[in-house]
């Protein structure tokens, strides 16, 4: 299987030399095309930092990150921006929307950059995605007029607009109640089933239970891994139990 992301010996340090603190301490990780991966770990373990390093939204101190074979450290700011727009999609914990645009405009914003000639096609796609995620009737609403779960669905629509190869999710269900969280996971699972790779950062074993592989992090290093079968929509509790047990084994 082709690897969409290869991370080799990634180090991310903060502070002056000599007194520096390693948030990522030589992490190596690969993500395959179409794979659904979760990164778990306690606060401060470096899981979010790893996700930002792999997506090129944050620089690294040493090591290497290849996205579709392209070395991120050799890419210019503009090339990184292009990659984020065309290859990657992002879903954050809090809904990251512009306050002066309505839901539909927020969803189409990244696709509309220098592309207004295709506006009709873009809007059509956005509407289809909104329908698929169950928020079709909200397109003209302000972002303050919808619930957190609805906003997160809009966030997913936005991430899918450019048909990315991989979606990064930083605690995408962290701000939602458990019912909404499961609904969001169902949508992500469906997207993954269509062939898009997903990398999630989460605290929640029930969320990680939807994925194919769970990576456990501690003190800036990968402390262990759990491979699961492809989720078939049944026995989520049992899968979550496995995730939690493995976590205890590793001692997190």
């Amino acid at each position: 299987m082709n690897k969409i992301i290869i991370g080799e010996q990634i180090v991310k340090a903060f502070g002056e030399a000599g007194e520096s603190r390693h948030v990522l301490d030589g992490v190596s990780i690969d993500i395959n095309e179409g794979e659904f991966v979760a990164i778990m770990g306690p606060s401060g373990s470096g899981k979010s930092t790893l996700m930002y390093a792999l997506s090129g939204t944050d620089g690294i101190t040493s090591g290497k990150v290849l996205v579709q074979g392209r070395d991120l450290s050799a890419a210019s700011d503009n090339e990184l921006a292009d990659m984020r727009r065309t290859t990657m999609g992002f879903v954050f914990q809090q809904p990251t929307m512009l306050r002066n645009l309505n839901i539909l405009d927020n969803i189409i914003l990244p696709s509309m950059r220098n592309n207004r000639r295709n506006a009709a096609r873009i809007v059509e796609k956005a509407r289809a995605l909104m329908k698929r995620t169950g928020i079709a009737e909200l397109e003209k609403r302000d972002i303050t007029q919808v619930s957190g779960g609805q906003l997160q669905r809009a966030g997913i629509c936005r991430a899918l607009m450019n048909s990315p190869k991989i979606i990064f999710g930083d605690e995408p269900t962290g701000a939602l109640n458990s019912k909404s969280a499961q609904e969001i996971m169902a949508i992500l699972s469906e997207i993954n089933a269509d062939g898009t790779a997903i990398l999630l950062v989460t605290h929640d074993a029930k969320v990680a239970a939807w994925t194919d592989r769970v990576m456990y992090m501690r003190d800036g290093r990968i402390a262990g891994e759990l491979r699961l079968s492809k989720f078939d929509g049944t026995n989520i509790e049992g899968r979550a139990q496995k995730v939690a047990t493995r976590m205890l084994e590793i001692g997190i």
Partner: protein
Amino acid sequence: MYNRIIRNDMFRNKAITLATILFVAAAAMLVSLAAILVVNLSGALNTLMKQAETPHFMQMHKGEIDHARLTAFAEQNSNIDEFQVVEFLNIDSARISLGDHTLANSVQDNGFSVQSSQFDYLLDLDGNVITVSDGELYVPVNYMKDNTARIGNKAAVGGKEFIVAGFLRDSQMNSSLASSKRFLVSETDFAEIKDLGSMEYLIEFRLKDLSLLGAFEAAYTSASLEANGPAVTYSLFTMMNALSDGMMIAVILLISMLVVVIAFMCIRFTLLAKIEEDYREIGVMKAIGLRVSDIKKIYMAKYVAIALIGSACGYALSFVFKGVLLENIRLYMGESEHASYADFFGIIGILLVSLAIMAYVNGVLRRFRKISAAEAMRFGISPEKPAGAKPITLSGNRLINTNIFLGIKDVLSRKKLYATMLAVLVISAFIIIVPQNLHNTISSKSFIQYMGIGNYDLRMDIQQADNISEKVAELEKTIKSDNTISKYAVLTTKTFKMITEGGLEENIKIELGDHSIFPIAYAEGTAPRSEEEIALSSLQADEMGKKVGDVITVVAEGKEKKLQVSGIYSDITNGGKTAKAVFADDSADAMWSIVAAELSDKSLIGGKVSEYAGSIGFAKVSNINEYVKQTFGSTITSVGQASNAAIIIALIITIMVTLLFMRMLIAKDKYSIAVMKAFGFTSSDFKVQYASRAVFVLIIGIAVGTLLANTLGELLAGAVISFFGVTTFQFEVDPVSAYLLSPFMLIGSVLIATIAGTSGAGQLNISEHIKE
């Protein structure tokens, strides 16, 4: 701790801190100067009026005077301390020359007096009462200031010659606002020149108790004593003396207010940006129990330092400039009696500036109270409710680039935020365009028609010749045989007696000849066409209280002649009080004549000027452009310089404010920028977005500024111009400079400032600003 915070913050934002200190220093300097000037002005004024013993009440009177009746009134009124009648001999300015200068173009009514015997003394520049010898002439100090006369110059009044022995301060007529000026001569000389002009009387009183002035005025009026002329009281003398310097002080204060407002804006934008940057920390400080006043102190500290440093620099600077500004007061009024207090008031002035800044900063920091600790810690930016612009959607946009769309949409949804920037840009556009239009208007050829000068090429002045009419006839013969001259007109100015409504006689200068050859622009009515018509300059009409259609009576060839006012025109020549008529008259002596000519080929003008200047010795030949330049070239030049200075100042303000405003926006928008960056927007996208916001606001600013400049600005400029006697005023706009070059300069400045101010936007760290 505060020292460290101040130092760190100042070093981090060196340029902005320095600019803010500079604005504060400029404001402090101006306020301090104004305070120093006020104290000096009032002190010097007191000294002058004390030394000169200025009358408490003065009635001017033209016509017969009954000395006995006035003396009887003075003796009866117990409040009168002293009383005198001073003779003031009004002589036509064209008959007075000082050195090489004639006063023909003087706007003042120049007259002669002898030194008073009891009070109302004319003083020399050391404040002593002048004793004048025969053959000596003391000249009002304003003619020293404008370099018309120097000590030792020869002077002539009518045919009588004098030597300028010195300059005088006149506590009554010093001010440029007083339309009369007194020259001082000896009693013998006064008697000799008495027949050259008309006599006016200054009936003067000093009272024992000045507070009873009102009652005295009423008593004088009810006694029906001589009163054909204005009456002036002590307080009015004080006001007139103080007014021109007072106006300068007012202008300084106005400018200082403008500078303070700019300093406030710099502080506001920097401070708001800082608050946005520190939003989360402020939330934390509140959450751990620091009082709002404690948090405020941390932010106040820097501005207290800026206010104090700026004020101290401003105070020091005011000492550098006060000499220049005090020059006028020293010249016209002498030294102040309490000059030493002045510096103390200067300190009070800068303290006020410092306090105003601290109060303002304190006001801006009041928003700390409204910050919710929990929200600040969670979101790290201030909550903002977008308003308006809802119907404009990105999904509906097919016309403009997405980045430009986002820029414009942002302005429309945060109108209040952009209002300050808009106001600054409107003011900038206004102060760039108005002086420019004024300069363009007064330097345009058609404007000279508003100044009482026709549109001709050559002008030949025949003045101070023995027999003007013969010389004119001789000149006319030459011109008629000159086929390069396509048309010409002879205009002769004579003095006539005019009968006022009160039955008194007054002089009026009337320019006779055919006024239709080189017509001038009329504010009202038309040029005189028949022998029974006359046109008046606006100043002359104002003085006489006449309107178009009214009738005035003039004595010509020994007979009274009724003339109907056909029109009123603006005039800045000959003191602005002139008249034009077409009737023939052989009686009165001509004061001067001008021969105006138009050439069939304009390229010949230069050659013709030298040809006529060489062959005709008795006339002063000038190119009309040259004449205009001489008459008020210096005014045009000063307006031109002021206009250039205004452009530079406006551009500096624009750049400064835009730069700080953009920095504040970036701080406010860090979250949106991080979001867009995460989804693939680049630095250049942000530059386009912010530049479109700035240019969009600027376009509205330019439109409103230009509209205001052409309406309000035209009114303001018209008010200024009317001082010169020009009543009809309309901007003559140079479209290239006003509608192309000026907006271009503004757009350039705004773009440079925007790019500089938003350069940090693309470098923003996504994970730092997007994570919760």
